[in-house]
């Protein structure tokens, strides 16, 4: 049976390319935008910027701690540094550097993290960080953003260039449906209600927003009307949008390519517990590391695809 999707796509692309193209555009708009990368320029899609602005781009070699410090220092001359590497090396490896030199010192550094989550695929668990959102959202002053497709990642990249303050921008490697508009305006901290519903709310971030869109169509076939909300900004969290939706639907599902512990779902749970206790079911990785495989295989094995969102929605409904 074919699905009646509320959002569709004609093209797939990786979100990191959205970052790379947004970064180039940000560089054209503002001469203070500079780039740093620790030997992953191709993987981060920072090459076009480097080619066009060689004087404003700094290859740091495989030295992530130094890269974070350099970026913090560059802000003092009014520069807006975008420091890019894989999400694992952009967070876990340099947590103390980010904490002291960026967050605590309130520096206008953009930490740009690719290959986040399971969907980087075959490289396996050493590279599949599933704890980064938690680590970053715990840092005072830090803004945490996880856009869902090429277009939204590009828009987010342009938005953070204009925002003053430390940002963690998370994106990924796999080719993914482009289902949001090219001309969208990205508002940091403002959730986007993509599909109206009345029975259950699905709060999704990153690649799983697409899975939520598919899940909504599957649920609708069974007469369940889900509301889909795109939480591209995990911090600051749009609590108003969350509470307004759950007031209407009475139950919710969170969906993210991250550990359940400490991720978006936990932030939503905190909000609901304080203001409107309601059933919440988590779709996320359940206290385990990843492994090698294709992105699709991994999302299925670890319970992160549309089918699992459907099951979680039904569990949430049953608890209403």
């Amino acid at each position, binding site marked *: 049976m074919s699905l009646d999707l509320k959002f569709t796509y004609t093209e797939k692309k990786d979100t990191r390319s959205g970052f790379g193209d947004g970064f180039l555009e940000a560089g054209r708009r503002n001469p203070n935008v500079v780039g740093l990368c620790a030997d992953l320029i191709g993987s981060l899609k920072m090459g076009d910027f480097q080619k066009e602005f060689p004087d404003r781009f700094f290859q740091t070699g495989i*030295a992530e*701690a130094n890269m974070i410090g350099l970026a913090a220092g*560059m*802000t*003092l001359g009014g520069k807006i540094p975008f420091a890019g590497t894989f999400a694992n090396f952009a967070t876990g490896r340099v947590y103390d*550097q980010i904490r002291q030199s960026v967050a605590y010192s309130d*520096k206008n550094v953009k930490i740009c993290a690719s290959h986040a989550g399971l969907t980087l695929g075959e490289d396996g668990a050493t590279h599949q960080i599933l704890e980064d959102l938690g680590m970053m959202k715990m840092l005072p002053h830090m803004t945490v953003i996880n856009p869902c497709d090429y277009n939204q990642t590009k828009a987010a990249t342009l938005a953070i260039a204009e925002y003053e303050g430390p940002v963690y921008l998370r994106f990924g490697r796999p080719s993914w449906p482009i289902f949001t508009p090219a001309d969208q305006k990205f508002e940091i901290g403002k959730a986007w209600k993509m599909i109206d519903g009345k029975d259950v709310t699905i709060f999704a971030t990153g690649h799983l927003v697409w899975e939520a869109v598919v899940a909504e169509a599957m649920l609708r076939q069974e007469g369940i009307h889900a509301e889909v909300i795109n939480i591209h900004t995990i911090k600051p969290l749009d609590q108003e949008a969350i509470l307004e939706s759950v007031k209407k639907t009475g139950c919710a599902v969170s969906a993210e390519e991250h550990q359940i512990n400490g991720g978006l779902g936990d932030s939503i749970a905190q909000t609901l517990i304080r203001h409107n206790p309601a059933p919440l079911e988590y779709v996320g990785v359940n206290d385990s590391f990843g492994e090698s495989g294709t992105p699709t295989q991994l999302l299925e094995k670890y319970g992160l695809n549309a089918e699992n969102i459907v099951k979680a929605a039904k569990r949430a409904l049953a608890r209403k």
Partner: protein
Amino acid sequence: MEKQSIEQLQNICTQLRRDVLRMVHAVQSGHPGAPLGCAEFFVALYFDQLHHNPDFKMNGSGEDLFFLSNGHLSAGWYSVLARSGYFPVEELKTFRKLNSRLQGHPATHEHLPGIRIASGSLGQGLSVALGAAQAKKLNQDDKLVYILMGDGELQEGQVWEAAMYAAHYGVDNLIATVDYNGQQIDGPTTKVMDLKNLKAKWEAFGWEVIETKNGNDLKSVIEGLELAKSLTGKGKPVMNLLYTEMGYGVDFMVGTHKWHGSPPNDEQLAKALGQLEETLGDY
């Protein structure tokens, strides 16, 4: 700022040492040893070498910048900042107390003038200083960036990432100084983790290296910094190995790691202050 005579500068050093001792004594916590050993460096830098503006601007464009990577020397840095006009000398009495701008380790969070980055977790400052130096180059700002690190601090791997970067990019508007006191928390560096031939190490990393053999002699320190300055702008980062004595200026504190992070008690303070004349007036 008017140039001061060596005698006047020496008086500031003595007062800085008094400030440090009184500050750590008052809260019975903090690190007296290294700031006592770096008094001449701090004073030479702030009162003789730096082109700086005590009407503090965070971005520091058009002035020399100084970063303290070994943030536990905060008492000494706060004293020299206050004494050179960044904030009221009176405020030194709030050191390490609740609601103070003078945090245990330097922070920007409370907006203390003179501080541009938090430090305390060792090993990060050189990277930050290099970033600031790179930004100066991008902005065609011909002023210099200075940074002080500890010798024990050099055991952190990030320092060597930064060392490699600095030479690769020819960051020649930066003067790094190492407080080469041969001490760290658990003992002499030779016992804890021997730094071996530091000069050869930095040279091998592509730096221009000078040695200031008597880091507790004001004239030598100034000459060292002058020499370092003359070596900037020649394509290489500049390293100044500053031989100091931890605890210098107080006979029972000098030359041992025991005073790295221990405050004097009442009796010890009185004895120490007896060896350091009150030159500018205590806070």
